[in-house]
């Protein structure tokens, strides 16, 4: 049940055209992305109009996964946009939080300027699931070049390259893996694809 918050200046852009079946398709792509790290899962959400600067595919993931039980952290460009905040609040009801550590989800629209990964919640020894899942925008997402990935969900090894990224991102992600089973999980979203990078994936920085 979502009601329009008081003081909404204009009606937010519409959400998923078919909330039940679209949400299932989006979730399935996210599930496959995390179950098979590095693979590119196609996700067509051309009928979704998300307010600038929230990329459409990220918006789709947010609408499918967030609700009032999931505090969400927005990176600066998103947090500054009244349209984005209203849109997310209207369609998901998720409380927007300022502290990275309080977030169940984080939406990162400009990964090259994102705050350090270590600020997000990595869960606890007894409840490693109480961690942040990051949804990060990617202009390009390919399996060519990029660090070598191995671990659960990967038959042998694979490569994943997302751009743009903060300079230290892969080192931070590699440090995140050493915390396993604690750690954050990442979903990259390009214009029509998503890829997953769960905490269980081992990252070899020596490019193959």
């Amino acid at each position, binding site marked *: *049940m979502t009601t329009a918050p008081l003081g909404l200046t204009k009606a937010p852009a519409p959400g998923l055209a078919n909330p039940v079946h679209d949400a299932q398709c989006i979730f399935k792509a996210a599930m496959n992305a995390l179950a098979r790290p590095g693979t590119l899962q196609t996700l067509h959400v051309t009928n979704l109009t998300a307010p600038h600067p929230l990329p459409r595919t990220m918006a789709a993931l947010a609408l499918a996964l967030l609700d009032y039980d999931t505090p969400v952290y927005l990176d600066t460009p998103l947090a500054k946009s009244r349209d984005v905040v209203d849109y997310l609040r209207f369609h998901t009801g998720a409380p927007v939080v300022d502290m990275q550590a309080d977030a169940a989800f984080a939406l990162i629209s400009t990964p090259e300027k994102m705050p350090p990964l270590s600020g997000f919640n990595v869960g606890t020894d007894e409840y490693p699931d109480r961690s942040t899942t990051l949804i990060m925008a990617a202009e390009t997402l390919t399996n060519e070049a990029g660090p070598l990935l191995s671990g659960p969900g990967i038959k042998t090894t694979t490569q994943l390259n997302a751009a743009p990224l903060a300079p230290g991102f892969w080192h931070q992600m590699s440090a995140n893996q050493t915390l396993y089973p604690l750690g954050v999980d990442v979903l990259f979203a390009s214009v029509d694809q998503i890829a997953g990078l769960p905490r269980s994936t081992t990252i070899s920085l020596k490019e193959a």
Partner: protein
Amino acid sequence: MYVAVKGGEKAIRNAHKLMERDRRGDRTVPELELKQIAEQLYLSVSRVMSEGSLYDLELAALAIKQARGDLIEAIFLLRAYRTTLPRFGYSEPIDTAAMLVRRRISATYKDLPGGQLLGPTYDYTHRLLDFKLAADGELPEPEKGAYDPDADIPRVTDLLNAEGMMEPDPETPQDAEIGDLTREPLAFPADRDVRLQNLARGDEGFLLALGYSTQRGFGGSHPFAGEIRHGEVEVEFFVEELGFAVPLGTMTVTECQMINQFKGSTVAPPQFTRGYGLAPGQSERKVMSMALVDRALRCRELGEEATAPAQDEEFVLSHSDNVQATGFVEHLKLPHYVDFQAELELVRRMNKDWHSKEANTAQAEEAAQ
């Protein structure tokens, strides 16, 4: 395929048809109406609403009818329906001090403000089968007295509290989040809000036995029935858009406040402590048992050593739900032949080994002689 394990949709359908026929019973006997159940089996309806976690007399009556009077089955039906309902929000806390009281008794004071009001009760009846009922006898109308709607009936615990003899009601911050078991899985240790919700949904028989065990010395807590009250309370809902609470209607509840002697510990002074029970409808046995178990479960907070089953939070809360319990006990009816085959093979082999070992030992003994 071998026939024995074939269920088949047809067999299932037929079994359900047969059940439906048996439910109806002899068709020359008039069919039960929901109103009859709601009016004449009100205590059953109360229990189903309480453990089914849904305040709706008609739906509870329907569940009882559909379940042929099996209350646990009825509770299950109501719960399964409840999960599909949209959730608009949480009501404001009900105020039982403002209750329109039908019954109010205290075992701790002979007389008290608001008085003792026996109301509808089986207490003090002679438990003799009433054959007039079997013969469809006419009921005499009870006498009506004057009723003062403004009469103040303060809660006994508030009276004791004024003297400083009762632990105060816990202060809850305005924006405190109240746990909800139907939305978050139970985690231990559980706070009192979640424990009370669990007990309110818990099986009456299970709580009765646990409450009884505390009286017999398994976690003795010296209870007095401070007050039991039963009647109608108003339910209000705070509407954000309006900025104030609007009444949704009234509901009938039964409340029990147990008063327990407490000698004090390192964390609390000597005073009376309380156990609390609340349930929809009229359900005195339930709320009394609930209050006893609630008090027993407060051992951690009051610095008492937990030694008895009723004080064992994980044991009590994990096993109180009869919908869960009945499902798991009855799932033993499902086929288990894959696992049984695995066990059979193992036991056969171990049995053979044992016999051959025995035989060897016997041979060796014979040889030695």
